[in-house]
Every structure is written in structure tokens, then in C-alpha cells.
């Protein structure tokens, strides 16, 4: 599911279009920082994530992993420093991404929506795609898929149950 976006990111990196990259990840970085901090300090942390991402881009740093993985790792790293009481305004330390030398990106790289919804019937996945990727209303989804509203609600309920199980499993 991420492949197309990863390819776009690779092109943006190749062309040095840092503005497009920062814009592409702006909302997800802000959302993650707000969710983690549970307060307005999340905006400050997010700002420092962007500054750090840009510092690395301007230094010409390259990555073996897709750029989205790098973004999420920088968010993780910056939040970790924030909660440890450290300054998140400083540039990232050399080797910042080496928390797991075996494969620092494995967890994030494997965690796309297909993985999240694994085990759900195809019909449910169609509902989830329309709801959480395309943003359709419940009635629109029912109409589009020829289902009753109740069937759409049940598919969403199964997805939430699945998601909660994933969270509970760590």
C-alpha cells in the first residue's frame, strides 16, 4: 500500500524537493506529536522534528529505508528525548537511527494498513478503504458497495476490534 508513495518520496529526494517532502509529512508528524504529548507542547516537538528532518536533508544524508520510515523514526526519537526531558531543538546525534542495529526500520516498515487489517474479510477491507483512505460517509459506502448500513457498521466494528487486539499485543 505504501509502494506508490515511497516511489514518489524517492523521486522528491532525488530532485531535492525538500519542501514537498516536508509538506507531505506535515500532518502526520503534527498528529503523532499531539497524540503523544496530549497537549500543545506537541506543536513544539513537531516543529523540532521538521527542523531535524530538514537539517539531515540539507546535509545530504541518504537512507536505505523509505523516507516515511525515516520520518517516523525521527518522530519517535524526538518524542523520546522530549519525555526524557532533553532538548529536542538540537540536531540529531550521529547514529540516532541505530536503536536496533539488526533492523532499525523493521517495525515501521512492516506496519502498513494491510498488516493492520490482516485477517479481516476482503469485504471488510473494501469498507475500510472507503472509510479510512477515501473518507466516505457510512451511507455513501453502503451505496457504493451495495450493502446495508448495518453491514458497514459491523465491518467497522470488526476493524476496531482487530485494531485493539493489535494494540493489546504490543
Amino acid at each position: 500500500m505504501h509502494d506508490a508513495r515511497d516511489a514518489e518520496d524517492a523521486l522528491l529526494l532525488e530532485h531535492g524537493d525538500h519542501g514537498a517532502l516536508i509538506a507531505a509529512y506535515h500532518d502526520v508528524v503534527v498528529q503523532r506529536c499531539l497524540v503523544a504529548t496530549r497537549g500543545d507542547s506537541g506543536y513544539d516537538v513537531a516543529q523540532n522534528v521538521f527542523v531535524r528532518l530538514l537539517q539531515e536533508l540539507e546535509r545530504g544524508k541518504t537512507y536505505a529505508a523509505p523516507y516515511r520510515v525515516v520520518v517516523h523514526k525521527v518522530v519517535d526519537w524526538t518524542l523520546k528525548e522530549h519525555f526524557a526531558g532533553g532538548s529536542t531543538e538540537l540536531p540529531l546525534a550521529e547514529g540516532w537511527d541505530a536503536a536496533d542495529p539488526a533492523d532499525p526500520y523493521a517495525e515501521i516498515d512492516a506496519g502498513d494498513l494491510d498488516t493492520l487489517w490482516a485477517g479481516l474479510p476482503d469485504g471488510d477491507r473494501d469498507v475500510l478503504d472507503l472509510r479510512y483512505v477515501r473518507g466516505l460517509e457510512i451511507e455513501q459506502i453502503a451505496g457504493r458497495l451495495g450493502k446495508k448500513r448495518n453491514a458497514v457498521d459491523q465491518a467497522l466494528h470488526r476493524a476496531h476490534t482487530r485494531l485493539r487486539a493489535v494494540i493489546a499485543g504490543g
Partner: protein
Amino acid sequence: MAQLFDEWAAALARGEQPDPLDFIRRAGAGADELARLMDRFLRARPRAEPDPELVDLARGWIAGTAPLAQLRARQRLRQDDVVDLVLDEFDLAPAKRATVKRHYQRLESGQLDPARLSRPLVGFLARALKTSVPTIVSWRPRPLEAAPAYRAVPTAAAAEPLLHAASVTREPVDDDDEVRALFIATL
């Protein structure tokens, strides 16, 4: 809790910028679980295609132009124009113009935290600058030490003095209670 997650995730998919703090607050005892669900989903979700105006904003931010100044320049407004609009909207006495202007300049330059703006003011600025509240609140000037030595300024309106675009400070700037309540809302 499932309904809150559903509303939030669907709003994200529609390209809105839902305030996750609002959803987490509404979750009550389920706040921790909702926050974990949200974070897991944010990691898994493919990024959206950015709005071209957002790309322009990011490019300006990289060049060292204050985001709020860019948004203002896009509407061909000067700082004085915005100040006049604020005075008019909130029925402030003309004698308070200089105070409003100082606050606004500090907001634009990153010396005031946009997350502390009162709801009426941030909502008004969003309407006046034809943007969204989350855009105003979430974009801050790039710190000067990280910005290029020679920054490109796309328009004259955006070239107005950028004071100290370092990290946001929360120092009180003036002592007019009415103006202060607009720009620095009580937490």
C-alpha cells in the same frame, strides 16, 4: 471510543486536520487506549497527497520566511491591514493599535506561541488569511540558526521585518488585558 476513532480517522481521510487532543479529551477513561490506536493508525496509514498551497508554505518555511507572513502575503495584506482587521473585528479602541501590532508582529516572528491564541482570534485570522486554524497553529517560523543565510522572500508583503524567529517563547509582551487575552489565552 470506537466511534471517536472512526470520526477522527475518517476526517483525516477527507483531508481535514482534526484536532486529536479534542478526541482524546472526549474519550475520558478510554483516552490512553484511543491515543495508542491513533498512533498505530498514523504509522500505518499512507501519507496523503499534500495540497499545493501547503507545499508552497513548506518551501517558504525552508527559505526562512515566516509561515504566517506567507499566508498574509498570499492575500496581499500588510501587517497593518491585519492589525486593522483585528481592531475592527474585536471592537478594540484605536488607542490599542500599537499594542495589537506588537503582539501580531511577535506572533508572526515566532515569539508568541500560536497555540496560545484565543479561539476567537485564531478563528478570525484563519478566515482573514483564508486558511485553516490548524495551519496557523501548527506552522512556526524556522529557527534563524537553521535557516539559509540568504533567504528568498517571494513577495514584498512577506518581507516585513522578521524579528527573532527562534524557538517560541511565552514571555508576556504587553500589559493590556484585553489584547493580551486575545493573543495569549489562559491555559
